[in-house]
């Protein structure tokens, strides 16, 4: 019988990985975001398919950043293999100077991700990538350019997850199973949010962080003003063509 604590043990391994091997990248990613936001930019987070989980950790959470939005693509990952899709999608996405683009993709090889990263860099915007370096290097790019996500990024957060994101072997099942990328990613994303929030508060930009609902009326009014300022950029319903 399988050890019931197997996933917990794997999770501990990824806490150690982030703590011992990714701290510099976490700090660099945090300072890029802080810098962009202080200059009036917003954080734009994207994850294709199930990597949307990581993007959701970065935005739209209480206690999180106000100047941040989730980019949603309408096929839920189904069109990510199509050449040209990322290009068309990005034609509709408002990316401006001082914004910071955050792409989460375990393999980093699909056309959607490559075209998105390429566009972002061509528009002169900072790009943070969360990917599996070893996984990405093992696999072949599915884009004619032969490129992979990590090659475009200003900083790479490496989750160290196997290429196909399967990590557990179970008797009677031929291939490895169970995806743990979200668990690994969380240990890279949460420290970034943690650092960014604290830095903004320290530097006098605490009004850009959502207060919790228990805040006083005065604080809520202040938050509304900040929200107004960013509304045209973070209004969630203009995310491409979401349902």
């Amino acid at each position, binding site marked *: *019988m399988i050890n019931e604590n197997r996933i917990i043990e794997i999770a501990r391994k990824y806490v150690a990985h*982030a*703590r011992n091997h990714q701290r510099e990248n976490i700090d660099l990613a945090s300072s890029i975001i802080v810098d962009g936001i202080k200059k009036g930019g917003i954080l734009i987070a994207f994850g294709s398919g199930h990597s949307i989980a990581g993007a959701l950790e970065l935005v739209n959470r209480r206690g999180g950043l106000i100047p941040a939005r989730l980019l949603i693509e309408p096929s839920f990952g189904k069109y990510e293999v199509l050449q040209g899709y990322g290009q068309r999608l990005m034609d509709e996405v408002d990316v401006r100077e001082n914004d910071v683009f955050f792409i989460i993709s375990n393999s980093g090889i699909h056309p959607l991700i490559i075209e998105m990263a390429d566009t972002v860099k061509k528009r002169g915007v900072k790009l943070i990538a969360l990917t599996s370096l070893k996984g990405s290097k093992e696999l072949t790019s599915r884009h004619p350019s032969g490129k992979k996500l990590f090659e475009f990024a200003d900083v790479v957060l490496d989750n160290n997850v196997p290429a196909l994101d399967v990590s557990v072997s179970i008797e009677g099942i031929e291939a490895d199973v169970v*995806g743990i990328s979200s668990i690994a990613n969380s240990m890279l994303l949460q420290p970034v949010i943690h*650092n960014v929030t604290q830095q903004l508060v320290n530097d006098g930009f605490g009004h850009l962080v959502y207060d919790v609902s228990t805040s006083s009326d005065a604080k809520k009014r202040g938050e509304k003003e900040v929200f107004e300022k960013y509304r045209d950029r973070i209004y969630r319903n203009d995310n491409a063509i979401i349902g």
Partner: protein
Amino acid sequence: MSEKVFEDALNTLDRIENSQVASIRAAADLIAKSMEKGGILQGFGSGYYLSGARELCHRVGGLMPTKIIYEPSYGRFESLVGVGKQMMEIVDLRPEDVVVLSSHSSIVPTVVEVAIAAKERGASLIVITSLEGAQKQQAIHPSGKKAYEMADVVIDTCFPYSEAMFDPEGKDTEVIGMSYYATIVILQTITMLVMERLSELKLSHLIIGATGSKLDPKSVPFVRDTYKKYKTRTQRF
């Protein structure tokens, strides 16, 4: 600064290991039984807990008879009474199915209405929630109900309601939730235990990529046949 995140993550893992394994096992048994009968797992989470549903559904090395219940506004209207009820009217949910609902508070109206619909239709319900907080909070849905109260199995994220692990000085707020981290660890442990059970039941064809990686052509026809059987039930759109 990130040190506190890592410490809290390790503490969270310890708490789950020490107190939730039996409930996780019960949830996995319920799901395996449902799949044995031809049922499917339907994942739901409002707002950023959509990720919870995402964890369980449509991934390589994951369970095939699964579906995400997509709430089209991504939680923007979750506090509006009726949203969950309206949405569930167009969701195909059958008595042999299991709904796995992830919710930090258990009291948000959309979440409560999904739980009510699940029970009304005779499906099984597993709720992953921050139990201490969910018990303390006043119900806000007009029914007076909270999602976890309706569940066949409740799994506790072992994280207090405030969800605070970090209070930036000079800011009346709380950021970063370890309850979500706890949720994904719990969900993947459930997935693993369901798969073990399916393997024992000789049902490992219900696992995506179980006969070799998805990229292995010899597994494709087999996977396709199984998909065909479930297609009308598990489609993504």
